[in-house]
Structure formats: structure tokens, C-alpha cells
């Protein structure tokens, strides 16, 4: 597997009594996975994805990324890993610094060893894909609106053409339209290229609508790793993890409680709910 955690523990500080991440066992493939990582603030979600990009190193245990064992020492070659795994931080607009939008998008590819021409081509392609209009490319990134800045920052990661894409709460602070655009873009990338996408989120609707695997963290432990439908069908587990159902599922639950519809597995998307209702009518 492409990312492989085996009994990985992590502490920020040696003096820390409780591990920030505790005995993490996880394998992630670079293809066909759309993973959502859930959990409360402080449960270790951001720490987990930073380990995947080798930005922080495991305190103990074995972490292998693309067949490279990540050791607990500095000065190991990590550039290749960072190229192949793109990590978009929370509020990525703060990482912009170049004079023009185009230069900022090119920054990553140039660092990863492309020459100027190739980097420019990659940047232009990415800008097109993500919907950054040409007239923005020569403007200073600081004069853009918040949503546009976020797009530019995400383009800066996508332009390096990573194999796995990780997003730390990508939709926070975006308006509903921007949110929808971004998510459908990620979905499109996933469907067209089959690249694995990992999203940290608090939004159950993203989990229900897009992901095919969910990982739930609680106090540094993985408490659930599996299909979202299995998570949402298990009411007691949901409650113990303090998670909600997606909107559609809540509507379905109320309809079921009122005796209007019936189902075995709770509908997660509008289509499933529609099928559930029309199916009942057909019977």
C-alpha cells in the first residue's frame, strides 16, 4: 500500500504524558479512495495528515510512504514524498507570497524540479482546471477576494500533480457556492484521474455525498475506519463519537418515524432518499 502506518505513535513534546496520536494502524492506496477524516477539535486529525506528508516524524512505530520508510531523524530525503502527496492546509491563502498569481502557482512545481517552461504550462493547466480566469493570473495574490485566494492556493498544490491529495478543512470560510464548486472540483478530479483524495471535515454532508471511506479519530485513536454507510447505520456508535447524521438522513429518519417510508440502510444522498420514497410508492 502507498501510505502505511504500523503502530505509529506521535507526541509533540517528549514530556507529554498522553500521545497526540496513539497506535495508528492505517493503509491508504493512491488510487480510487475518497477518504474523509472526522473527529473533534484536538482529536489529532491535522497531526495525522501532517505525518502522511512527513512534515512531522513519528515518535515511534513504522511509517512507510511510497515504499520509503520515514525515520525518526532529520535530513532524510522527503522532497519526493511531498511532491507525490499534496497537502492543502487550513486557510491555505496565508501561504501565498509571490508577486503574481501565476508565479505563486508555479512555486511548487519549480521547487520539485520542473524547469520554468514546464512549470508555467502546469500552472496554466491547473488554473484552467480550477477555474481561475486568465486576467487574474498577472495580478498580485493579496488583492484577490478570500475565495479566489483559496483557489489560487489550492492550484499551487495541484500544479505539482501529486498522486494523493489531502485537504485540511478545505471549505471552512467559503460561501455555499464556493463550497459546492470546490467539492465538485475535487469529485471531478477523483472521478477522472482516480487519485486518492483525503479530506478532513466536520461536515457530514461531505462524508455522505462524496467519500467512500471514513476514518474517525477520538483523542488520538482511530475509532472507526470503514464505509460511511456503516458509520451512519450504527446509531449508538455515532452518538458515542458525537457525530451527526447528514441532513438527508435526518429527513429520512423523521419520515421513517412518522411511518411514511421504510428502509434497511439509512439513505445518505438525495438520490437514495428519492429511491426510497418512490420505491415505497411503487410497492
Amino acid at each position, binding site marked *: 500500500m502507498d501510505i502505511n502506518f504500523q503502530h505509529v505513535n506521535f507526541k*509533540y513534546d517528549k514530556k507529554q504524558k498522553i500521545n497526540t496520536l496513539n497506535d495508528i494502524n492505517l493503509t491508504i492506496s493512491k488510487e480510487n479512495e475518497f477518504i474523509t477524516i472526522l473527529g473533534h477539535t484536538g482529536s489529532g486529525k491535522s497531526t495525522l495528515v501532517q505525518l502522511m506528508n512527513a512534515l512531522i516524524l513519528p515518535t515511534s512505530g513504522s511509517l512507510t510512504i511510497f515504499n520509503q520508510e520515514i525515520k525518526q531523524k532529520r535530513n532524510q530525503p522527503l522532497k519526493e514524498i511531498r511532491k507525490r502527496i499534496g497537502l492543502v492546509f487550513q486557510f491555505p491563502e496565508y501561504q*501565498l*507570497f509571490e508577486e503574481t498569481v501565476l508565479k505563486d502557482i508555479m512555486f511548487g512545481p519549480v521547487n520539485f524540479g520542473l524547469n520554468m517552461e514546464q512549470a508555467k504550462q502546469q500552472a496554466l493547466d491547473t488554473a484552467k482546471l480550477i477555474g481561475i480566469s486568465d486576467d487574474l493570473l498577472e495580478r498580485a495574490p493579496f488583492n484577490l477576494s478570500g475565495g479566489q485566494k483559496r483557489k489560487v492556493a489550492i492550484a499551487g498544490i495541484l500544479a505539482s500533480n501529486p498522486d494523493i491529495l489531502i485537504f485540511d478543512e478545505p471549505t471552512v470560510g467559503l460561501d455555499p457556492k464556493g463550497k459546492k464548486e470546490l467539492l465538485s472540483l475535487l469529485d471531478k478530479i477523483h472521478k477522472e484521474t482516480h487519485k486518492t483524495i483525503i479530506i478532513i471535515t466536520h461536515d457530514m454532508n461531505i462524508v455522505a455525498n462524496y467519500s467512500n471511506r471514513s476514518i474517525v479519530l477520538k483523542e488520538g485513536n482511530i475509532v472507526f475506519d470503514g464505509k460511511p454507510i456503516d458509520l451512519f447505520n450504527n446509531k449508538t456508535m455515532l452518538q458515542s463519537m458525537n457525530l451527526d447524521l447528514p441532513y438527508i438522513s435526518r429527513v429520512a429518519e423523521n419520515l421513517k418515524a412518522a411511518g411514511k417510508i421504510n428502509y434497511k440502510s439509512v439513505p445518505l444522498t438525495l438520490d437514495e432518499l428519492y429511491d426510497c420514497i418512490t420505491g415505497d410508492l411503487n410497492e
Partner: protein
Amino acid sequence: MNKIAFGQFVNTNSIIHKMDARIKIIGTILFMITIFLVPTNNFYLLGALLVFALILILLTKVQLSKYLKSLKSIVFLLVFAFVFQVIFRNNGTVIYIHYFKFTWNNIVVASFIAAIYLLIRKYLPMKFIFFVLTTVLIIYILGLPMHGAILNQNTIKLSIYEEGLISGSFIILRVLTLILFTTILTLTTKPTELNNAIESLLKPLELLHIKTSVFAMMVSIALRFIPTLFLEADKILKAQASRGVDFNEGNLKAKVVQIISLLVPMFVVSFKKADELAIAMEARGYIPGEKRTKLNEMKLQFSDFIWLFIFVGIFTTYILLRIL
């Protein structure tokens, strides 16, 4: 999460902690002056001050290791000052003369030891002690009567005089006492308390139309935001690292780009935070220079007057001893 503990404050709620911060500052300043009022090489008077400092340290109930930690940073300075006093004093009673003999054998052995030291230095604990030991050893070896061709006919000698030793020790003791007094202040007073106390002590400057409260506010905001900016810097550092910036390597040009990729976002974040803070302060009615009430009004207690009396008493005693 917050790795940067600011200041050295340790709360043990002792009587020193409860002392008014203004009195503590005044006391520290008085003691600093007192230490330099002690006549040179008068160990009794300086020793008395050191004993007083030790009594205060016991009263603070803070672990001694905290004080040792603050002394650790100046050990180098102390040893340096001592060595200079010992080497460059050349009048008075001689107690020891060390003759250097530069023969081939001496030099080879000495260089050998120096080389070993340089090789294993990385793995040594307490580097400084080993450095001193090695230096002493090399000097000793260079004085051994070994055979071999003599390189230098004129013997170089290192004479140690009694006065040098005495004044060297006196300097060490003086700086030690000084550091202990200031450490008591920083270990027992919160940075905000210190800031408020300085503001209060500088009040008289307002007669000259200098707005001390504004400066105090600036200082406290700066202190408050140091950890926040460290966290921001860490975030940006990681974000750029994931875009392929390798902060460990690169030539000069790459280094410049690395620093710019960190600095520009830091400026943007700082200005944004400053802007937000200014608006939040204004929304809560802050007007620079206007009179503000305080949550913790500093009031002098009876015990504070006793402390002040003790401090001033010691100070005047030393002045009188100096004059008489």
C-alpha cells in the same frame, strides 16, 4: 500545544510572589546599585548581600534548579572574566609560575589531545567543563620538561598572582549576586505584572506629556503576540515545506527565496492580526492615552512597606559604609 512558555514565572504563591511588583522592581534596582557600592575585594560586605539573596531565594519556594538554570547562561562569562583577571594581573605576591616549554614532543602531545577533544566534542555532555579541562591539560603538558628539539629559546611564563585570584573571585561573586537578584524578580513576577509595575513607576513622566499607558499597552500586546506569531510561523513553514521548500538545504539564492516565502506571509498575517485587534479594542472602547481602570488595581500592603523599609535600610547602610 503552546511550546513557547513566556517568561520564567513559576507560581508558588510565596510571600515574595505576593510582594507588590513595584516594590520588587525598586528593590532589584537598589540591590544592583548596592552591589556596585561594595568596595573592591571586600568579601564580607558582598557575602552579606549574597546571604540576603539566598534568604530571599529560600522564601520564594521556587526549586533551586530554576536559579541554577539562569546562572548556567552566564557561566562562560564568569569563567572568562576570572581567567582574564588571573592572567593579566601582574603585580603583588606571586603564588605560582608556569613555564611554557615549546619542544616538539610537547607540541605533538598537546595537539594530539586537542584533536581528540575536537573529535569527540559532539558526544560530550557538559561541553563547557570538558573545554576548560582540556585547556588546562594542554597548558600543563606544554609545561612538562620533555625531551626534543626546543623551538623557542625564550621561555614564556604564566605567573599567577594572589591579587589576580582574589579580584577574579570577587568579580565572579559580584556578578553571581547580581544575577540572583534579577532572577528572583523574573521568577516571581508575571510579565504582565512587571509591565503594570513599570507603567506605574513611570507615571511621573506623564507630567512631561509622555503617555506611559500607551507604551505599556504596546509592550503587553507585543509580549502577548510572541507565542501566537510563533505558531503562525510554524504553520507557514509547514505549508511551504509541503510545497517543496527545503529549509535545510540550498544555495544563497534558494535561501533568499525560502526566507521570502516565510517572511511575506508572516507580514500579511501580522498586519491582519493587528488590524483585527485594533478594531476589537476600539469596539470595546479603548482610546489611546485615556484614563483606564484596571482589573487588578495594585495596592501597597503593610508588608510591602516593611519590605521597602528593609531594602532602603540595606541600601543606606552600604552607602554609609562606603562614605565612612
